[in-house]
């Protein structure tokens, strides 16, 4: 952990120094009657292309391009630095042309989604660890199906052994939808246990209608409910960690398209440097 903190402070320090250097260079460059927007624009474009290259790097693990962890660190801090570059590029003003508003919005969305992804990867990683077992996202439906089959069998066995229909009815009404697929996604994202606690409460409320053997069955079912709940947590958190890229990556490409056209327009209509 110490090394993580050290790395963070070191990288943050480098980013801060670079940010200050950008601001100083902007002022000095402007003093020479030149527009720093050209320099900052090109730098921004090159940095964004470099950031987008991280996606490519992940697809080429066999090439000696440095570790993915290093790339990720560069991606994060260079991404943060683009905010400074962007603000300097737009001269700390809100753009007011249609094209430039769209371009700026795209950048802001990409940046914020990146920030969001960074936050998710830090917060959700801790929560996943606290959740207990690690499970592959793609295997979660498999585990859910197995638990579902098991509980289904337990209910069927109970019908044969007991004469009441409390458990089967409760299973059909409340438990089967729960075991069918991942549930309470948003609650788990928001770290709310209210839905699962409500289900457990309902399970407990059935106790007064059950005989002792039935209670045993219900306890076993409740254990599966807890396990299923943990799987749901995994599904929600891991899903978020995968789906946020659905915002970040496509918008990056749209941003690059708009940036290239912006480049052409700037130089075509430029009145000089």
């Amino acid at each position, binding site marked *: 952990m110490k090394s993580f903190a050290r790395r963070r402070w070191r990288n943050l320090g480098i980013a801060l120094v670079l940010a200050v250097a950008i601001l100083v260079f902007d002022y000095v460059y402007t003093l020479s009657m030149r527009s720093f927007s050209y320099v900052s624009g090109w730098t921004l474009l090159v940095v964004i292309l470099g950031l987008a290259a991280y996606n490519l790097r992940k697809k080429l693990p066999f090439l000696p391009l440095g570790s993915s962890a290093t790339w990720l660190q560069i991606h994060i801090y260079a991404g943060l630095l683009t905010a400074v570059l962007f603000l300097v590029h737009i001269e700390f003003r809100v753009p007011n042309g*249609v094209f430039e508003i769209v371009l700026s919005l795209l950048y802001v969305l990409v940046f914020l989604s990146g920030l969001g992804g960074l936050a998710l990867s830090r917060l959700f990683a801790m929560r996943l660890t606290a959740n207990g077992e690690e499970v592959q996202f793609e295997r979660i439906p498999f585990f859910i199906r197995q638990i579902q089959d098991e509980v289904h069998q337990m209910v069927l066995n109970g019908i044969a052994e007991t004469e009441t229909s409390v458990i089967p009815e409760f299973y059909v009404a409340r438990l089967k939808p729960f075991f069918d697929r991942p549930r309470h996604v948003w609650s788990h994202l928001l770290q709310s246990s209210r839905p699962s606690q409500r289900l457990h409460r309902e399970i407990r409320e059935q106790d007064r209608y059950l005989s002792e053997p039935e209670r045993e069955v219900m306890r076993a079912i409740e254990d599966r409910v807890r396990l299923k709940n943990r799987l749901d947590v995994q599904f929600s958190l891991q899903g978020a960690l995968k789906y946020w890229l659905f915002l970040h990556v*496509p918008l990056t490409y749209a941003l690059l398209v708009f940036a290239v056209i912006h480049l052409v327009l700037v130089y075509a*209509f430029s009145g000089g440097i």
Partner: protein
Amino acid sequence: MGCSLEDYENEKEQYQRPDQQWVCGWASVGKACHIGPDHKGQCHVERECVPQHDQDRWTCTRPKAWGGKCVEGPLPDGTCPHCRTRCQPVRSLLARRKVLTVWVTAAAIGAILLMLGSEHNTTMISPGELSVHHRSLEQNCESCHASAGEDLSGWLHSALSSQHGLTQSKQCLECHALGEHSLQPHSVEPVRLAMQTKRAEDSGSSEERPAWLALAELGPSIPKTEQGELSCVTCHREHRGGEFDLTQISENRCQRCHAQPFHTFSQDHPDFVSYPYNRRTRIYFDHSTHYDRHFSLFERLMPNGKKPDGCTTCHMVDSSGTRMGLRGFEESCASCHAGEIESADVLPGIRFLALPGIDRRAGDDDDDPLRKWPHRFKTGEHVLGSGATEQLTPFMQIFLSSDPDFQNAIQTLNGINLGDLSEASTEQLSAVRKYTQSIRNLLDDLVETRQSALKLRLQKLTGDTVKQRALAVLVGERSQSSAFFDAVTEVHTRWFGDGEQPASPENEAKSVTRTFGGWYDNEPDYSIRYRPSRHADLLLQTWLDACCRLLPSGSKSETARTLQERGIAGMFDLLSDRSSPGGCLKCHTVDRQHDGQLRINWTGNRHEPYHHRFTKFSHDPHLKQLGAESCGQCHVLDREIRLVRSAFTTRDWKPNIDPGSVLTSGFSTIERRKCATCHTTRSAGEHCLQCHRYHIGHFPPRSSGRFTSGSK
């Protein structure tokens, strides 16, 4: 009591290939097959297993998820007996993200094409609103952007071109006329700028350079062309909204180019050298002498005069509020000086017309015109300056110079003393006759055709140099109406008779001088003279201006060659003499301009509306702030220096025509520290553009004719 996922980790052959494009359709319900779809996303599974051949028997390989090994086992031919419905493969997460990326990129390209292809594409790509001054150009991008009318390929071409900066600047200059050196720094010619830079560098600066500027010098150079030109956009950035000030610039940016940078105005701006005086005053007025002597002895010297209460008695803010102008002669000076002009009746007037005198013995007989000449010298009288040209007034020299006979006669009579023709040859006598006849012809013309004769003669000489209105004044059309011609008619009758009445007896002394407005005939010297009756006499003013315009550039009366030039120079000398009635040039200075022409300063410092100087100052707000009589706070009378007369007249009392002969008006240079009393960052402000302009020169407005409304 709890269970864990380890309890279910008994099937590891589950199909999990998230990096591929397609996954089994049953994967979402946890029953993915172990084969999976192909790369095209098609499922080829028809049976629940692919039996494995083990030695001589076939073994079922159905996955546990599907129920494990079947009881029946494979058929003898190795076929699985259990059919399975094919799944509908779905894209993996990665593939879905890729598809979404493609769609979003395509949508972005589509949006761009829509923007660029729409009717309002320029509005779409415009980076923002124009400033309020250029708002009318918002639908007309070609006004400023050379490549605005092109398509995407044209923009690409422009983008790769290296000259669009200057090309675009030339578009700006279509409307903004900034002189011949528009794109040079300060719109000033490079030579002049280099001189000022050298002067600044030589004067040196003891203060250290501000840190930011020292740092900037390590950075890139200022973007100039080889000829030293800057594009307009270097300082002026558009498309920043209606309220944006296009002329704003930081002080540090201003100083980036300057040889003497400083921190702030109040701190270490270079001290003023001669501000605001860069030439002598246009009206010769010595403040010190007036304040210390004349005004203090007012009651004794000028009992009828009006003593000024303060500066504002004579000075007032002009209509623009920037300059202090003079109130005019009537308000400021007349109470003391009007008498000098009006009492000129004690001085002889200006000789406009005069008959030259000739030897009374000249002439063969009584019918000889020479015998009938009115002005003949007495026998034995030797008159100095009685040469043919010397006796002519400048006025007559000008109007007779168009007569070829007169020109020839003058040449023949060069050096001849008209007062003694006893030894004159026949040829010379003939020339004298022509000489006198020409003068007679002039007088006859004046009597018969009046202004027309003079106008014709003058137009022949001046061409278009003198305008019609001035011409009319010169020949007496406007001033005193026909007084001059009435005077000429009167003397003509007296001198030559009118056919019915004989000429008056020669040299008959008359005690009465007839007057015709400002004109009067002076009988003893056979002349018509003029005296101004008031200040700003139009006739004298117009003649002086005409002489300045007609005098060849650089010429003086001594170097004048032709009769015409001598006449004009002589007229100027006559009217500019300090003893000349009116004494116009006693107070009104004469400047030689850059083109060599002379110009008389009839008024004080004039506001030139299209002339932009480096430094600007507006009196009105300062007077309002400091009080109407606060002039002395900035303009301190320098009693050590009297405005020397040599700055205004030469040793022989001719006008000094060098406007730069002295750089003072009798006041000390304004000190920077006085301005810095108020002009600090926290108080009145000390930005460069408050007091300085960038574009210097004379810029009359120009219409490009581009913005017609099209209305009929």
